[in-house]
């Protein structure tokens, strides 16, 4: 897929809570096609500590309006600066980068996300739905205020939730949710993105139950498009770049 460098315009910066926000970015002209699982590299500024671009998943796209959504969790200087972007600001992106989630060959799917890892699952849910597959989401957070953007997910399909402190949904980690524990309704495919510990548990569960599982990694990156070899993951075929061979991998391909 052809890659571009473009200045997008920030047309909205919606704060979801003290640490999450959703940026709506408008393409200068006609936005090219992008796929769920792909990401963009955001040029933050040229401050001493925000020298490199920041990789952020494509949360959703609207081709009619030529806009794209990014769901950002503020964890450091770069993401906090993104949180300060205002309507009308420029936002320079290298995009669309990486591979994408495959469509399932069986209809029963579960999309499992935690933290900012829920970002690409919305876009994937939309693609599944457009292909006649009902997406089901299992979203986990530390507490209820970490369960964000639920309405957007609910528009697409059923949403199950867990929180570590039990303040919303099932208490515990995603793996403790009844859908996972009881395997009902049945699942053929899992798509997961979030903290590595969570994805490892989900991948193991999938392996034990003969479920196909695609995971999306968040390795640290310098370029995002295959030029530096900094972002490697260990796979059955040795080191592979998360930014070009991934970020989406079949869980069984990774040496976890």
């Amino acid at each position, binding site marked *: 897929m052809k890659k571009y460098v473009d200045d997008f315009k920030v047309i909205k910066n919606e704060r979801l809570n003290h640490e999450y926000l959703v940026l709506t970015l408008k393409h200068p002209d006609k936005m090219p096609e992008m796929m769920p699982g792909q990401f963009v590299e955001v040029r933050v500024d040229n401050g001493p500590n925000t*020298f490199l671009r920041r990789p952020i998943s494509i949360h959703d796209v609207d081709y009619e309006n030529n806009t794209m959504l990014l769901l950002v969790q503020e964890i450091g200087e770069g993401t906090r600066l993104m949180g300060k972007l205002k309507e009308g600001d420029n936002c320079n992106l290298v995009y669309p980068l990486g591979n994408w989630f495959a469509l399932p060959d069986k209809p029963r799917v579960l999309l499992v996300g935690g933290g900012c890892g829920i970002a690409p699952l919305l876009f994937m849910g939309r693609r599944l739905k457009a292909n006649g597959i009902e997406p089901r989401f299992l979203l986990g957070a530390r507490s209820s205020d970490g369960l964000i953007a639920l309405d957007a997910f609910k528009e697409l399909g059923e949403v199950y939730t867990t929180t570590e402190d039990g303040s919303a949904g099932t208490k515990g980690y995603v793996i403790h949710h009844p859908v996972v524990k009881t395997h009902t309704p049945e699942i053929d495919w899992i798509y997961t993105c979030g903290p590595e510990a969570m994805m490892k548990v989900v991948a193991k569960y999938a392996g034990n139950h003969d479920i196909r599982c695609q995971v999306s990694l968040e390795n640290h990156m*310098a370029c995002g498009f*295959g030029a530096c070899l*900094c972002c490697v993951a260990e796979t059955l075929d040795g*080191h592979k770049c998360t930014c070009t061979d991934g970020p989406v991998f079949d869980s069984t391909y990774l040496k976890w």
Partner: protein
Amino acid sequence: MTASGTFGYGEEFMDFFEISCLGGVLVKGTTLNHREGNLYPRMAETPQGMLNAVGLQNKGVHYFADHIYPRIKDYDTHMLVNVSGSTIEEYVETAKVVNDLEKIPGIELNISCPNVKEGGMAFGTSCPSAVAVIEAVRKVYDKHLMVKLSPNVTNIAEIAKAAEDSGADSVSLINTLLGMAINAKTRRPVLSTITGGLSGPAVKPVALRMVWQVAQVLNIPIVGMGGIMNTNDAIEFMLAGASAIQVGTANFIDPTVTEKIVHGIEDYCKEHGFDKASDLVGAMEV
């Protein structure tokens, strides 16, 4: 030109601009045998720069000759191969293979990689070992031999002179500066290798100084690099004595930066009354 290890095989950038505008592309560090490189994490962002510890991940020179060369040989720019090794024999064998590749006009002998356990930088930090490897490669390699120097030395001019005397056609500098990063929260090193190579604007003043020092003693051309982010930086290296420049880390931040610099140098020359870019070389007025 684009710096080795930061521009892939050129292909990664073709969506962004027409690479034929470049003077040359230095392809990834190539060794005799396949190398998996170092373990992840291999990168740490640091103030105005980054540390890397890639460790020369590549599929080996034979794979390059059989599978990659056919793809890239007809690119309309100079495709040079960055050659590395852990023993003199490895450098020689690798250079021999590249010597037979008709469309590769030169190699950049990397005697300055800080990210491999044996060899690499060890060759570039003492005169006798640098001389030994350059002389050995010179015997088997008859096209342009560029030698890439390490900044991790006390007297870079001395090594540069030794390279010239051993048969180098040009020298390029600087490779990355040895550095490290620690995560105070976890009290652990950020890189899997603990230390790594620093690049980006953070190293520019050091690189510029070294190019200038080397220019005082050398007759062969100098290729300058280290933290070049824009036209102005490139001009500074030329004024210090570099006949050509390479851009590395900046490619990650703006993949079109090299195209901008190529045009920027032309504009600078017009604006400041220089007929050609080569008139800028060493033109710093003191």
